[in-house]
């Protein structure tokens, strides 16, 4: 027994040094040298300014400006509305604003709950308000599920191709571009399936929006 206690006490300390310090420091150190971009979160810059991570989703809503020329606040949070010039990400329910990447969370909305139906209805309504003027045939039935359902991480960097093609009508009109040009940009920022078969293709919203700004400037709202 005594022998076991001594071995256990030494063992846990030795293992903590080996597996808790040496191993993570080695992996992190080598990664910093071998894959600095990935290891640091694939930062994207625009005009020298850090505008996000390629693989963390963002909100493309803008602050609502009140009559006094200042952003409107409600309960301490800035009120926002979707910016029609940009492709919109999937709905996000993170606390203190959508796409809060310091506090990832599941929505935990159950399959048979009224709260889930209400959330879906609200997201569909917002999606139709934003896109229907540019695509009159759009309805709840033709709204892609990813535009109505919040994601797992609520930081999903992607939307489905169907979702992007619907929003393309709005982008083309607001930015005075041809639909074909917008669709071409969508194709260039669509990530294919993993190793040819795993998962689903998705459109990277942040990259696509940055490309829009680069190629066509910031159109007036």
């Amino acid at each position, binding site marked *: 027994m005594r022998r076991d206690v001594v071995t256990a*006490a030494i063992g846990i300390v030795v293992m903590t040094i080996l597996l808790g310090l040496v191993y993570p420091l080695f992996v992190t150190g080598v990664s910093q040298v071998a894959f600095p971009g990935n290891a640091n*979160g694939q930062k994207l810059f625009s005009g020298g300014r850090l505008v996000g991570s390629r693989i963390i989703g963002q909100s493309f809503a803008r602050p609502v400006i009140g009559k006094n020329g200042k952003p409107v606040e409600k309960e301490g949070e800035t009120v926002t509305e979707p910016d029609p010039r940009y492709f919109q990400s999937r709905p996000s329910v993170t606390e203190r604003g959508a796409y809060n990447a310091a506090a990832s969370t599941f929505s935990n909305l159950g399959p*048979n709950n009224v709260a889930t*139906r209400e959330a879906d209805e609200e997201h569909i309504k917002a999606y139709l308000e934003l896109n229907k003027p540019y695509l009159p045939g759009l309805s709840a039935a033709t709204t892609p599920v990813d535009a109505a359902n919040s994601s797992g991480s609520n*930081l999903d960097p992607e939307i489905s191709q169907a979702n992007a093609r619907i929003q393309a009508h709005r982008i083309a009109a607001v930015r005075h571009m041809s639909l074909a040009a917008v669709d071409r940009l969508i194709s260039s920022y669509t990530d294919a399936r993993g190793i040819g078969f795993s998962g689903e293709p998705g459109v990277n919203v942040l990259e696509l929006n940055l490309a829009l700004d680069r190629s066509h400037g910031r159109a007036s709202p």
Partner: protein
Amino acid sequence: MTFTGWLTIALFAAILTALAIPFGRYMARVYTGERVLLTPIFAGPERFLYKVMRVDPGREQDWKAYARGLIVFSLAGWLLLYLILRTQNAFYVPHALNPLGFHSAPWNVTFNTTSSFVTNTNWQYYSGETTMTYLSQMVGLTVQNWLSAGVGIVVAVALVRGIVGRSGKSLGNFWQDLVRTILYVLAPISVIGAFVLVSQGVIANFSDYLTVHTVTGLTQTIAMGPVASQEVIKELGTNGGGFFNVNSAHPFENPTAFTNFFEMMLVLIIPAALVFMYGRMTGNRRQGYAIYATMMVMFLGAVAVAYIAEAHGSPAQHAAGLHTQVISGSTGGNLEGKEQRFGIAGSALFDTITTVTSCGAVNSAIESFTGIGGAVPFSNLSASEVIFGGVGTGLYSILLYVLLAVFIGGLMVGRTPEWLGKKLEAREIKLAGLGILITPLAALFCTALAVASHAGRVSISKAATGPQGFSETLYAYLSQSNNNGSAFAGYTGFIQPAAGNVGSHGVTFADLLGAFAMLFARFAPILFALAVAGSLAGKRVTPVGLGTMRTDNGTFVVLLIGVIILVGALTFFPALLLGPIVQGLTTHLY
């Protein structure tokens, strides 16, 4: 459903099998002390560790000595981890290891978390990016990711040695097995796997959280950290505790559909290889194939049900007017709580894999699965995680079921039950029976307490009305008793008003009841499994005759599946009826 969805599932099963067979052969060589490819690299460090830890590797242990080492070591790990988590800001910590100055979580939450990581459960009431410092994640949680996995694996190895043992009572040496597991099995895959993950976008840094100014004039804060080193062992050791709150749904933990596939492979490689190792060590590889077939049949059944159910969509979606069939450019289905890059198949497959094993990592919200889709994780847990199961725990648990199946089969044909030439007697059957019943006992007892008391019901989330509230509770204790760690994550034991734990408090009832479930249902079955091993080790082997019931053919596979389903169904069916089944059968919204 799509063709590529089914293709992913089929290819996954095929590649897993192709990798697990040679890896099982490798593991058999490691544990029988033969030379392997990595011996030249690790023989030196191995000897060094024995010397420092004062281990005499040649010293054989009977089951009691083996169990004593295991319990004392786990206790030491528990104490150190509790200390680390409770003092994460009590002394000087370099800025890079606690960039946001987080305080410690309260004692009750820490008690739960500590028990959780030492038992390979990794149930998380806390959220990583708002609770844990980088230092705690590294020297606290990552270490137990390795050690609890190692402890699980060595129990399986010891049980196999007992089953095949020809002489005396020895089961090997606990310390030697543990050191070998870490060096020869876990370390090589972890280091290489970590770099594979980083090459695909998993992060590995000690930076401050990023502050980003978005194109529309908003500010976004992005959590950072040394994720890769923890991510790989989280999957490989079937631990499942995420660096971030949303676990493998987080783009920094699981950035692409390729990493999703890779992580699923990491989760199942050791549990699958252990089965082939067992076959080799018994001297009859068909013994391993029979168990593998049993697991694979039940696994594929579970995946298929989950995929079909999730692709169909949920009643709430349909009530809101959404159409959930596949259309051009959209996967359709129930995408609530699922990431676009994984889609329906990649999410259903991942969550099935991590609930048949004791991993419990998730890449999509199980609470948002449809009734029938959610019943799949429930059923996996109800089968006590013998379909592959956790590293080691899966093998020793299914071997107890094999023992029971042999006994029942023997009774049916009217012969003395014999297994691999050893007569099974009352003692082994009693021990195996108890070992099997501990987990259901803990799960149902704790669920009953939690739904029957006010103190238990406060943990149910506000949105979980109707049967969802019961499902949340049952899942919480089923998951913790099975040392799984996945969750209907609305169930809470930790109230945290702001990041960094100032002003936070735990829900003592849920925290301690869960900790009890995890500790009791981890160590009691381990002791029963080791006792069975000790009891079998001393038995004489009689030659196989015409009257021996075979345990390596299709008939036995069917019998074994029957026993697993029977025990699971009889124990859990009434409880499952009240939760997921009623939700699966109705389109009513609550």
